[in-house]
Structures are given as structure tokens and as C-alpha cells.
């Protein structure tokens, strides 16, 4: 029993926020929003508002942590205290440490770290408002900020979640569905190659449901990828392709 759980979350094929089952929430992206960062991005995805800054490649202190053959990628995901319903205590918690790790691992897949030996690239992600699906939104924002910083990558990382709500497979869960739904499956991919670089799941799904949800999440990520490219094009125009 969970207080606050809505009786039904899908009514006549419509979700509580009016979307269809396979519909993405509205997404807005912008790069180059912070003056001081080497690269930055701002992302609105449904009720999520995420700001991301990239500092680096730069020297790493203390030096013995640096690697002679490649850059270190560091990633810190954190939530503003007012990003959630009840004020979150400031400071890192176990959830944000895990998320920082899986986001970093997804990004490490695409960044050409070997071009910047002895350095560090810092990715700071701040969730200003959260509405379910912040890890996918964070990866999307982070890979935009890395691109904005001019860091060579084999591709952007795109991401989207699928899940199970009221027994049905749906795309891109928002907060209420995330809290009270039956399963959540965030997926991040490298669109050019189809590689899956982040995959987590919690909840309960059968084999068939899982296959369908995985498919759906990937299709969502591919749509997000188009938006990412558009956001970069808006700032860099045709030149972006060459830059990469």
C-alpha cells in the first residue's frame, strides 16, 4: 500500500498528463548557456529542468591521479534542494553517487579520451527541477555540453526510458508513473552504432514486456537524438559536423 497512488494511471489509452502510450514529453534543448564553462547545456524535458557544465580538458591535481595515456572523465550528478516535492537535504547521497557513475560510464564510451592524456574533463549536472527520468535527461544534456566544449566524440549519447504502468508498456515515464508504476527501464545508446551504453531496470516485467520496452526506449532515444543534433545545429550550424 502506498499513500497517494492514483487509482488508475492510464484511462482510455491516455496517460495522466494526456500523452499517448508511446509519446515523448515536450523537450527543449540549448547549448552554450553558461559563460564560464568550456561547454554547457540546458534541457527541459517534461517537468525536468537540467543544467550541465563541462570544464576541461584541464590539468588534474593531485598529479598522481592523472593517466599518462588518456584523460580522466569525472561526472557529478546532483539535485537542487528545491527540485523535488519535499526539500532534499543538500550534499551527495547514495543515489546520486550511483547515477554519477552510470552516467559517466555511458559518456566514456563515446569521448575520445586518448586525445587528452594527463588531463581531466569534469561534467557537472545539476537537476534544477525533477519530474521522472532525470538520468536519461542528464545524459542527453551532458553529451550536448561535451559537444559544446568541442571535445571530440564518436557520437552523441542519446537516452530515453520506457516502463510499465497499469500493466502497459509506455514510453518516457513522468514522476507519478515513475513513483507508482510497475517498472522503469532507462536506456542510453550510441545512435550511430546502436550500442547500448546505459541500461538499468527496476520493477517487474515479463520477458515479452521487457523486449517491447527495450525496443520502445531505443526508439525514444533515437527521437531525442534528432533533437540533440538540431540543438547543436542551431548554435554551430553546418560547421558542427566538421568540428566533430
Amino acid at each position, binding site marked *: 500500500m502506498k499513500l497517494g497512488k492514483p487509482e488508475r494511471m492510464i484511462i482510455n489509452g491516455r496517460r495522466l498528463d494526456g500523452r499517448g502510450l508511446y509519446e515523448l514529453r515536450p523537450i527543449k534543448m540549448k547549448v552554450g548557456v*553558461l*559563460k*564560464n*564553462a568550456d561547454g*554547457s547545456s540546458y534541457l527541459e524535458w517534461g*517537468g525536468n*529542468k537540467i*543544467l*550541465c*557544465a563541462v*570544464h576541461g580538458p*584541464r590539468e588534474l591535481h593531485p598529479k598522481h591521479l592523472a593517466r599518462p595515456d588518456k584523460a580522466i572523465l569525472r561526472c*557529478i550528478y546532483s539535485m*537542487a*534542494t*528545491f*527540485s*523535488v*516535492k*519535499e*526539500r532534499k537535504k*543538500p*550534499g551527495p547521497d547514495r543515489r546520486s553517487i550511483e547515477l554519477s557513475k552510470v552516467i559517466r560510464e555511458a559518456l566514456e564510451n563515446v569521448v575520445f579520451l586518448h586525445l587528452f592524456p594527463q588531463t581531466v574533463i*569534469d561534467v*557537472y549536472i*545539476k537537476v*534544477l*527541477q*525533477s*519530474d521522472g527520468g532525470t538520468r536519461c535527461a542528464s545524459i542527453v544534456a551532458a553529451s550536448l555540453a561535451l559537444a559544446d566544449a568541442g571535445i571530440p566524440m564518436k557520437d552523441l549519447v542519446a537516452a530515453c526510458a520506457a516502463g510499465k504502468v497499469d500493466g502497459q508498456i509506455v514510453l518516457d515515464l513522468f514522476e507519478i508513473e515513475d513513483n507508482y508504476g510497475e517498472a522503469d527501464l532507462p536506456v542510453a545508446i550510441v545512435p550511430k552504432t546502436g550500442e547500448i551504453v546505459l541500461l538499468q531496470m527496476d520493477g517487474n516485467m515479463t520477458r515479452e514486456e521487457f523486449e517491447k520496452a527495450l525496443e520502445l526506449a531505443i526508439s525514444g532515444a533515437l527521437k531525442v537524438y534528432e533533437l540533440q543534433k538540431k540543438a547543436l545545429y542551431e548554435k554551430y550550424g553546418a560547421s558542427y559536423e566538421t568540428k566533430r
Partner: protein
Amino acid sequence: MRPRDEILANIKRNFILEVLRSNKRIDGRGFNDYRKIEVKTGVIKKAEGSALVRIGNTEVLAGVKLSIGTPYPDTPNEGALIVNTELVPLASAMFEPGPPDENSIELARVVDRALREGEVLDLEKLCIVEGEKVWLVYVDIYSLNYDGNLFDACCLAALAALLDARFPKLEDDRVIYEEKTSVRLPIKNYPLEVTYAKIDEYIVLDPCYEEEEVMDARITFGIKQDGSICAIQKGGRGSFKREEILKLYDNAVEKAKYLRSFLNI
């Protein structure tokens, strides 16, 4: 600091001083000018109130969250205001992740001081049941881009967010965050901070990052709408003369009025 950095710092300082000597600032402003100011409220719906403030390239975001708690034993019929600021590493390559350092703590405490001593809220009106239940008002301020003068930006953002805030619904002592009422916080005063930097003999309003880097001293005034003072904080190893302080006070009263004009109050 390595010898090379030392030399670079001197070159920067000399350059800035040279410009000041010709009665200008490196970004073209007059000594007594603020940079361009923008205030945008209601930007975070999950917060009870919020405000994004830009002063030049300095950008901070304040959010207000309310919750129910017990009053302090010596003020049983008062709620509480809790102000925090965080120097997020987003904002500058110089801010490190980790627990707050002394600069971060000073900033938080000085912003808190102006709001608290300036009695921004009527705390007695935050009492629900005397001695038992009161509203706690949290203001958390994140620096998003640091280009100097966080004091004034954070204080302005905090006041703007408090003005923007609405109480959430209260049902049998449970806060229904999803439903905001139309009731505003009991705002009693409008304290704001005005900050000056001293570089050699020159004193400039609203220092940018490069000016802060080379300044000798800094002084912040917390000013209320009636022109009285509610907080001062001097920083840096430099010093001020008595007359400078009195002159700056008068100037700060004007500048606080100017800042308040961005709040539509």
C-alpha cells in the same frame, strides 16, 4: 601559487588599475554602475517560490521550500527562515565539489544576515500551533555562473523568490505540495545587499570577477526600504577609511532602491 601565476596576477592587477586611473572600468562601466540586471520569478514550479537573477554574467537561482517543524524553545510562537547558498562547480572552474569552504559559508551567512536582521519575514505569522508547529522557510540559492558579486545577486534572488512564494495547501498537518494556495509569505521588509570592491585607492560598485580577483577589500551593506542598515560585512585583507564607509553607506541606500525597482514592489 607558482611564481608564474604570481607574475600573471600582478600583470592583471596593473592592467585593471591603469584603466581605473583613467576613470573607467575594464568592462566600460562607471565606478558607481551596476551591470545589467535581470530578475525572473516562478522558474521552478516544484519550489514554493523561485527566482533567477542575472547581474551581468553572474547568474544565481534561488528556490523557496516550505515544511512544517517545531519552533526553537526560546521563540515558541515563531517560524524560522533558513538560508543556504552553494557555490556549485557548474558556476566556475574554480569552485570545487565537496563540503562548503569558508567563502561559501561566509556568503551564505551574510545573505542570511541581511534577510534575518532585516526582518524580511514576520516570523510570528509562520506559527501554526504555539510551541508545537511552525512553518520552516528554506531558501536555497545556487550560483550558476560566477562573474563576481554573488552577495548582491544571491540576496536579490532570495528576496525575489520569497516574494514569489505561495503557501502550499495544508491538510490535517500534511503539506500538499502539489496544490499551491494563493497566500503569500508574510513579507515585512525588503532588505537587499549592495557590494563594493576596493582596488588600491579606487572603490567600485558591483565588482566583476576580474575585479574581485585583484581587489584589496570588499564591503557589503544590507539596506532596508527605509534606508536603515541591517548588515555589513567587510572582506579581504585590505582596509577602509571611516569616511569611505559613511560615503558608501549613503550610496548603498540609493543603489538598494535601484535594485528594489527590479522587484515591482
